[in-house]
């Protein structure tokens, strides 16, 4: 994988981008997908103070619906603080956005309460302290429901009310990521496909009578040569071409999602490099002062974990003869690394099924490659 990746954007709109990624590992492409879905910060309503609710929906129901409304989160990673990192007690202008909603129905027709009724309020603390560097980076509509002041954008329905009913509430929106709650995911869907002809046999199709007729080929199949009738199965083949379709909910643009996703992956790797260096230097100098100058806000100490630690958490270790090679069929063994010690079989390319798209991070859990009998994903 030392050759550079090849990229082709097939379609680009404000809220979606369709691209083909070539010359990378399956694991690499999948990590990009995962990071775009789950690791990018956005703003979403987190706390709701309900003053009056005479609608047919209970408070919790409305609070949940409010949380799902995408709010404009451009540059959220730098324009806002996490409440847990903020030095305020509960919430302040640095780490929260206040929205209010007050709707009463006086007509005799059913009325829609929508996201357009949410009004961005200045935080009561605003002005007490000077606007920090975070606020300066915000766009004008930061934190307001998407499409609020744009023509032709349909609002998001919160509730329907009839004559005499009222809904009055105050929302506190906070910054978060989708690992905490899926409402913070900037993506509504990330389609991910490889090997449209199933040449690698990473999946098997269920069919009634005829596999070909019951599983029509998708768009992406045109990009690759179909399987010939007499073609033998190449068990050394690895997936190399990946089809993505990133669709955002509007809180971030598609371009921002992709670029921030790449940056976030780099940040994860860089923190690991930094931590490993710290561990190495800790071996040589046990008295090194701890903490202090870490780049990405992660805490670390110089306490040495190297050397011959007690290995306390080696719960799942099978020994090489009993469990080590299990799960790895001989055919898959070859692959990337030329010389491999006997006991540990390795299954470099296997794992994810051939075609799958995930619509929401919350839906299917965090997809993982297939585990071996002994619990190792190799």
């Amino acid at each position, binding site marked *: 994988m030392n050759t550079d990746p090849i990229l*082709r*954007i097939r379609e680009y709109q404000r809220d979606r981008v369709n691209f083909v990624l070539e010359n990378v*590992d399956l694991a690499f492409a999948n990590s990009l997908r995962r990071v775009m879905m789950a690791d990018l910060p956005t703003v979403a309503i987190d706390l709701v103070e309900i003053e009056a609710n005479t609608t047919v929906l209970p408070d919790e129901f409305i609070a949940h619906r409010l949380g799902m409304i995408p709010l404009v989160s451009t540059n959220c990673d730098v324009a806002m603080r996490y409440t*847990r990192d903020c030095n305020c007690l509960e919430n302040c202008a640095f780490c929260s956005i206040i929205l209010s909603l007050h709707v009463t129905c006086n007509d005799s027709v059913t009325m829609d309460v929508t996201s357009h009724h949410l009004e961005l309020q200045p935080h009561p603390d605003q002005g007490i302290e000077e606007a920090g560097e975070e606020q300066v980076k915000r766009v004008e509509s930061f934190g307001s429901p998407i499409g609020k002041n744009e023509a032709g954008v*349909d609002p998001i329905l919160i509730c329907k009310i009839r*004559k005499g009913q009222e809904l009055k509430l105050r929302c506190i929106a906070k910054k978060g990521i989708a690992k905490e709650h899926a409402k913070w995911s900037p993506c509504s869907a990330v389609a991910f496909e490889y090997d449209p002809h199933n040449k690698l046999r990473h999946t098997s199709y269920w069919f009634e009578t005829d596999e070909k007729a019951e599983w029509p080929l998708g768009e992406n199949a045109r990009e690759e040569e179909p399987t010939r009738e007499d073609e033998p199965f190449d068990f050394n083949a690895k997936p190399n071409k990946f089809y993505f379709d990133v669709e955002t909910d509007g809180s971030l643009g598609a371009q921002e999602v992709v670029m921030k996703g790449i940056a976030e992956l*780099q940040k994860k790797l860089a923190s690991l*490099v930094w931590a490993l260096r710290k561990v190495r230097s800790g071996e040589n100098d046990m008295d090194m002062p701890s903490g202090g100058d870490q780049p990405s806000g992660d805490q670390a100490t110089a306490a040495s974990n190297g050397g011959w630690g007690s290995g306390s958490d080696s719960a799942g270790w099978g020994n090489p003869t009993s469990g080590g090679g299990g799960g790895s069929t001989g055919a898959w063994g070859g692959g990337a690394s030329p010389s491999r010690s006997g006991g540990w079989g390795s299954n470099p390319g296997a794992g994810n099924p051939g075609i799958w798209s995930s619509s929401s991070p919350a839906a299917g859990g965090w997809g993982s490659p297939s585990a071996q009998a002994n619990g*190792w994903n190799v």
Partner: protein
Amino acid sequence: MNAPNRYELYVLDEGEAPVEVNEDTKIPNAATIKILKQDHTLGNMLRGQLLSMPQVLFAGYKVPHPLHPHFLLKIQTDGTSPPDVVLSEACNQLIGTLSSLESQFKREFSFKEVDGGAGAGGAAGGAFATSDDPYGTGTSTSGAGAWGNNRDDYLDF
């Protein structure tokens, strides 16, 4: 509520070391590296990169328990360099690949914007504007109005 904070799944505790290296006592040039507050996103990618390196004899990772926010990465090298150094090198290679990908994305996105496709502001109407009304406004449909009027009969304000 006595549930732990959800962010503890991905934010390091105060003073917590992000990585622990345990050298293997029985296998030469091998180590098990515990990486805290990270998951398959990093684990699988590193495993894949390590396997493509010629000095690596074995690389595998596992998440021992789905509720415990860490993974174990086991690396055995051929002895030319220790496992943790090889891991740093793998990280640096991945950062390089990502940088190359990033610059390609930058170039491609700027081409698409020049093409007059969907620029950041260019598609203001395009991406979101749709003329059909998925929810119905209630006021425009005469049926709903008539129905609403009749319902007044039993309302007791």
